[in-house]
């Protein structure tokens, strides 16, 4: 036994074929659900369609000069005055629904992602600040969060939009205002937990400066719940924007989002011109479902509690 007293030999390497990064592990766990993978693929296609809309859409539905009301409310598959075929029909302005949906996706996704990113930035910073500063700062921020969370999003957004007026930017602002609190609460929650972890103490012990501890050690470990909240909030923001547009406060009518397309077509529902709101509705549904599918799986994969 005396051989071992010379100090432990270098510990054996655990058998692992390739270096497993947290990212790779995450990818493989995510891919475990076929439904989620399907959602992801679907979402990617949707994003692609939205991004490429100006190149692949048959018409620019936002250019009034390209529309002709004489082509209004044509059935799917009709051929319009200028000879183009409206595969999904047209709305009351003679707007090609297919193009309208592609561009509408652009708006909806921009609004959803834009508001989610901005809200995340604002919320995460405030949440981090609350968790790290503690005391009065913390309680002030958290009271603000409570206030925001207890106030119904839809009402708050209605008020803000009534105040700011229409426009994509204003919708984004309104959504940021109603959503930041979710991020703040999430980040604060996980930061408070992570903060007490020993690796943070170790970093303090190594005399690393506070900002480095926050941004290099604390923040990355608070990200998973944030990502989950983020995806869910993108879906929520898209739905909320649609509802706001439906209630008449949202994006401008000449640049309709999916929600506004639905709202426009809503009036034609009873008269049998279903396509004006049905197809955008389906597009909206598929988008939100795909995001939620992805978010759902993220929640499972990133939730440490379900892991043993």
């Amino acid at each position, binding site marked *: 036994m005396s051989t071992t007293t010379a100090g432990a030999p270098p510990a054996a390497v655990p058998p692992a074929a390739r270096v497993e990064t947290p990212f790779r592990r995450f990818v493989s766990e995510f891919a475990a659900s076929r439904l989620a993978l399907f959602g992801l693929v679907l979402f990617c296609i949707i994003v692609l369609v939205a991004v490429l809309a100006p190149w692949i859409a048959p018409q620019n539905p936002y250019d009034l000069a390209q529309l002709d009301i004489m082509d209004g409310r044509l059935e799917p598959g009709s051929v319009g005055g200028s000879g183009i075929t409206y595969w999904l029909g047209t709305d009351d302005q003679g707007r090609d629904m297919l193009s309208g949906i592609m561009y509408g996706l652009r708006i909806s996704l921009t609004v959803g992602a834009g508001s989610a990113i901005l809200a995340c930035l604002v919320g995460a910073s405030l949440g981090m600040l609350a968790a790290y500063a503690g005391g009065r700062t913390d309680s002030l921020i958290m009271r603000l969060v409570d206030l925001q969370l207890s106030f119904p999003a839809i009402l708050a957004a209605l008020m803000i939009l009534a105040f700011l007026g229409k426009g994509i930017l204003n919708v984004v602002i309104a959504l940021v205002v109603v959503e930041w609190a979710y991020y703040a609460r999430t980040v604060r929650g996980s930061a408070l937990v992570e903060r007490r972890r020993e*690796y943070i*103490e170790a970093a303090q012990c190594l005399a690393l400066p506070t900002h480095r501890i926050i941004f290099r050690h604390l923040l990355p*470990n608070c990200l998973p719940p944030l990502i989950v909240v983020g995806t869910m909030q993108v879906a929520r923001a898209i739905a909320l924007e649609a509802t706001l547009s439906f209630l008449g406060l949202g994006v401008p009518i000449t640049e309709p989002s999916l929600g506004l397309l639905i709202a426009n077509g809503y009036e034609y529902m009873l008269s049998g011109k279903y396509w004006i709101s049905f197809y955008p509705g389906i597009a909206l549904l598929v988008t939100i479902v795909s995001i939620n599918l992805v978010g759902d799986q993220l929640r499972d994969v990133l939730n440490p509690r379900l892991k043993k």
Partner: protein
Amino acid sequence: MSAVLEAPRAAAQGSVPIIELRGVSKRFSNPLDFAGRLVKRLGVKVREDVVHAVDGVDLSVRKGEVVGLVGESGCGKSTLGRMVAGIMPPSDGQVVWRGQDLTKLSGADAKRAKLRTQMIFQDPYASLNPRLKVAEIVGEAPQYHGLVPRGGLEAYVDDQLRRAGLDPSLKRRYPHQFSGGQRQRIGIARALAVQPDFLVCDEAVAALDVSIQAQILNLFMKLRRELDLTYLFISHDLGVVEHLSDRVVIMYLGRVVEEAPSEEVFARPNHPYTRALLAEVPRIEARKRVFAGVQGEIPSPLNPPSGCHFHPRCPFAFDRCRAERPALKQVAPGHRSACHLNDAA
């Protein structure tokens, strides 16, 4: 073999304390908010919750010494360790590092003092940042503090890993790919990388299996010899402490109740709590013994008993114990104990 051991201890006798705690206390409180104060003003009984995690502790550790800190859960061992390591300021008292008050040191000096004291943590899972590679975990601080020349970091990290008994080829991996023992070695390499001379080991082996525990304990001893390190070794495992320490400090509910050289404590425990503790420790040598158990529960630090904290569980308690806090008094050379029985005798 024992010669290896005696040398540093001899050196330890005369030298100045590397760290000294003077009447150090730590209180955690949750101050009443406005509503609370208002209600209190109205005469309703509300109490501010104050935890006296550490209550007036004096302790000095000399260079090259291994001091074992023993006590039951929640008695304030970790808190004390954190204050020694400089990551938590004391509420009262002074932490003196090589003759300088840590709290009064200025930026650069404070940083240097902080770096010279490092901590090894209990939980090998929580003490490593899961999002950094091993090389980053070990190399971050030396690089940040400029302890290694530019370009020399790779080799430096390799050295640290090798010294902690890890294969440097593993440094591109993430913590979750290691076993508990290996992680503990990473933690040790991280601490050693900033060239400390004092290590606070907070339950550093408690989470490990016996066979792995032996490996890590051996590593500690090896490093002590090689790097002339001083240790504050916190543990609730008396066996480990007995094996490793030169001096043992026993805490109960935030206070030091006994302090003596290792052999002395195990041979002639003075404080009733120490005696109970020693009696309860299962020993592999003691076969089919009859357990008895110290009576009573460990009191809450929120609401500690008056006088001597141990009196509700002490079979020898008398009136004075309930009223007066016993002071830590010398009962033999180098052996101090806080018990009124010593006065009575």
